[in-house]
């Protein structure tokens, strides 16, 4: 096994599990950390939903604890404060996007699976890989710690629009010891981590593929990670620059984003002035739109893998899919200002951005169509990962389609910054991406642990999750169509907000039930990790290279360096004696 390489001696516990340079250990570290963050981010939202459903009522169960434990979130009776609501909202967004989904999809799955799928012994820069994780973790901890500083966590939204983000959270005397500044510092850590990771991913994918694995024989998941890495590499630096500038605005009283003559709470602000609040928005969305595709592309990649494996036929239009995601990745850099139609955009720029937005919808339609056509003529096995993967398709469709009214500037006038927006992007990232991530967990769990997750618990997890996801987010469209603004602590004082309040209650109950529905998953996860059914190296009868390695793969991954003979999804090849032809098995052995 791994001792074939000669002088390997077993590293100690710290080198093996804590400061490991093995991509598999780092992948698991990322995955477990991000699952914890996802849980925290989700919990914040469940608290917010109480205030939305029952305005000004004390939070049950945890209200008293929150009053004593954290700053500025609830009052003495345990009722959520408006600034606490804003803080939870800002942190929910930040945690879910930057600490939950991306680290799980890229840091976790990407790190663990991608090198295996290309037959590499590790990432190109193993120590850099370790550094990525150990820069990511402090970033996350700084974010969470900001709940406990004077004034509480950042409360200017995950978009942190100045001047609000510059004038908010300034109660403390120390310029660094407050929520928004810590948010910025945390972001700088997270961005640095992502940059290190993306360099590593690209070099690994380009340089470390085994013999025979040409670009168009790479599994679709690897392609998705490849495009994602480019998005991270080129889109994140502008936010880092913007973060530094906002930090200077907060700490050194500069005015990059501060116009002259602001009067905040009756006080004339003593800034030199001349800055532009729109500058932040441009730099922020220059990252944050590609970031949307960073959230969705790995998910699409996972769905592609799972669908191909469980339809037992080649993925329909593999090349078309690859070209589509490359095109998506490219276009995602030139659509960002559709988030800014209402900042006073004139006709020229709105024409440009709504046209690019309509163009970018086309590859998404192509991807969805290709996945649907993959089902045609298949022999679909309804395994647990497959259930999640096929549920992804209609959910992603809803998320994508509802983007159209927001992408056209005229209909955006009515729908901009309403609950419709929240419904739209959550359909993409929650019932969409999260479903795909669950599919990935169920699918690759046997590779990581050598054990399969329990099927019954898996189905008990799937059905309520699917139902309650929709119960949470579908009502938001109806609330949004009525024009109710988002981020309102209490919407019932508005006529349309009052009218639609029952929908809000439905969302809230959906969210709490969705929380309960995760119990089977948590039980299943720990139970199966230690006592699940042991399975062989290739339990799903899959074709890609990760299944050629033992489960769990040893240090160095492959006892024998594999050679690739064919494309990634050669299922049900006529004349073959089994219904799958693994990439690394020569033709002679299959006939």
């Amino acid at each position, binding site marked *: 096994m791994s001792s074939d390489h000669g002088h390997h001696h077993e590293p100690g516990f710290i080198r093996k599990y804590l400061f490991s340079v093995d991509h598999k250990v780092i992948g698991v570290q990322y995955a477990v950390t991000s699952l914890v963050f996802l849980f925290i981010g989700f919990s914040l939202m469940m608290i917010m939903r109480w205030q939305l459903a029952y305005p000004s009522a004390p939070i049950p169960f945890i209200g008293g604890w929150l009053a004593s434990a954290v700053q500025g979130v609830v009052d003495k009776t345990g009722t959520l404060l408006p600034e606490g609501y804003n803080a939870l909202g800002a942190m929910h967004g930040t945690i879910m996007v930057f600490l939950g989904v991306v680290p799980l999809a890229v840091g976790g799955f990407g790190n663990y699976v991608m090198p295996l799928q290309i037959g590499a012994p590790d990432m190109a820069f193993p120590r850099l890989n370790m550094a990525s994780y150990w820069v990511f973790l402090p970033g996350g901890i700084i974010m969470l710690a900001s709940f406990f500083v004077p004034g509480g966590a950042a409360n200017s939204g995950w978009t942190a629009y100045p001047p609000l983000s510059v004038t908010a959270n300034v109660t403390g005397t120390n310029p660094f010891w407050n929520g928004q500044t810590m948010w910025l510092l945390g972001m700088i850590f997270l961005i640095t981590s992502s940059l290190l990771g993306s360099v590593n991913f690209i070099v690994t994918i380009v340089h470390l593929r085994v013999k025979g694995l040409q670009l168009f024989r790479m599994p679709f998941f690897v392609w998705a990670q490849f495009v994602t890495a480019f998005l991270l590499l080129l889109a994140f630096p502008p936010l880092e620059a913007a973060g530094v500038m906002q930090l200077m605005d907060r700490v050194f009283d500069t005015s990059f984003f501060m116009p002259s003559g602001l009067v905040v709470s009756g006080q004339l602000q003593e800034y030199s002035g001349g800055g532009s609040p729109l500058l932040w928005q441009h730099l922020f969305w220059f990252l944050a739109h590609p970031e949307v595709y960073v959230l969705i592309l790995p998910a699409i990649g996972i769905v592609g893998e799972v669908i191909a494996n469980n339809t037992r036929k080649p993925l329909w239009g593999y090349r078309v899919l690859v070209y589509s995601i490359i095109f998506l990745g490219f276009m995602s850099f030139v659509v960002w200002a559709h988030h800014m139609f209402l900042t006073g955009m004139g006709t020229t720029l709105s024409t440009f951005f709504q046209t690019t937005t309509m163009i970018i919808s086309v590859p998404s339609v192509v991807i969805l169509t290709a996945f649907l056509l993959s089902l045609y003529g298949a022999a679909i096995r*309804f395994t647990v990962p497959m259930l999640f993967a096929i549920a992804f398709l209609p959910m992603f469709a809803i998320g994508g389609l509802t983007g159209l009214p927001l992408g056209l500037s005229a209909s955006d006038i009515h729908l901009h910054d309403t609950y419709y927006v929240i419904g739209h992007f959550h359909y993409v990232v929650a019932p969409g991406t999260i479903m795909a991530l669950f599919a990935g967990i169920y699918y690759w769990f046997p590779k990581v642990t050598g054990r399969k997750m329990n099927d019954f618990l898996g189905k008990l997890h799937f059905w309520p999750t699917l139902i309650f996801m929709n119960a949470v987010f579908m009502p938001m469209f109806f609330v949004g169509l009525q024009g109710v603004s988002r981020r309102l602590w209490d919407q019932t004082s508005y006529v349309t907000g009052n009218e639609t309040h029952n929908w809000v209650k439905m969302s809230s109950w959906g969210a709490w039930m969705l929380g309960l529905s995760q119990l089977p998953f948590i039980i299943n996860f720990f139970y199966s990790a230690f006592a699940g059914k042991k399975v062989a190296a290739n339990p799903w009868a899959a074709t890609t290279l990760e299944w050629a390695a033992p489960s769990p793969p040893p240090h160095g991954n492959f006892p024998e360096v594999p050679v690739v003979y064919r494309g990634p999804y050669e299922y049900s090849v006529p004349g073959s004696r089994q219904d799958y032809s693994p990439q690394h098995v020569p033709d002679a052995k299959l006939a």
Partner: protein
Amino acid sequence: MLATRYWLPPDISSHGSAIDNLIAYLHVFMAILFVGWGIFFIYCLIKFRARAGHLARYDDVKAKPSKYAEVLVVAIEAVLLVGISMPVWASYRNEPPKDDPLIVRMVAQQFAWNIHYPGPDGKFGRTEPKLVNEISNPIGLDRDGDPAAADDVVSINNFHVPKGRDVVVRLSSKDVIHSFAVPLLRVKQDVIPGMEIPVWFKAVKSNDEVREAMTTTVALPTSEADIEPFAHKHRGDVFMGDFGQGAAGQPLAARGGWVTKETIAALVQAKVVEVAVAPKDPVNIQCAQLCGLGHYRMLGQMQILEPDAFTQWLESQTGGAEEFIDDE
């Protein structure tokens, strides 16, 4: 329930129907696509499920229809984009009304809307950040230094406009980014500090007419315990008719009176089964961009008046700030 067309709130603007139509067409288009995909999806899941004796096909299906569908999608998107969205946006942005519009300044702040009318001279007085006093002079109007400021009218949170006349709102902000949103008027525009951004609309219905259209008949609670939640739910509503009969023959709830716990209790006691109510201020101004902890209470009211009533109101204002108090 609101009178909803396409599940949208009532539209009382002259330009809103184009936006509503676009939203409606888009949703029909989306629904057709979704149902089409859905039928194919479900068909595949049933027809091609794994079972004994059923094998997957290796060769690709030839998918001509899907190509046609994709081309159709592109074509429809292009038509909606070029045919509706761009022209609507152009008129929303580039064609300010020429026909004697009412021009007002709207200065947003945490957490209120200050409306600045130029007064009879049609000229806005100069404003200075230095002169801002949150109680007496929220927009920093230079009443002493600038003669044009003398007749200016400043109103807080109550935005009076005449029905049937174009209104141009010049939006600016004192502190952070806000967003001026009036869903019923299909108007929304971010307010960016450091610059002025115009937006315009024409209301085709007055508040009275909107209230009339929004009148709903609701069943009164039957049990004591439900009275308070009912009154709370309808705390912004007024009665749209006389209900119940008191000892002296007067109605227990008179038309235009607020819905309160007491009136509801009296009505319930008098065995009145249902009442007609409508929001007192049916046309809300919301802030659509997170602007701080009071974002949720940055609630303004449009007071859309008949032209005569508007002129009367404007004349009655002698330049003092009028405070809008939200009755609970």
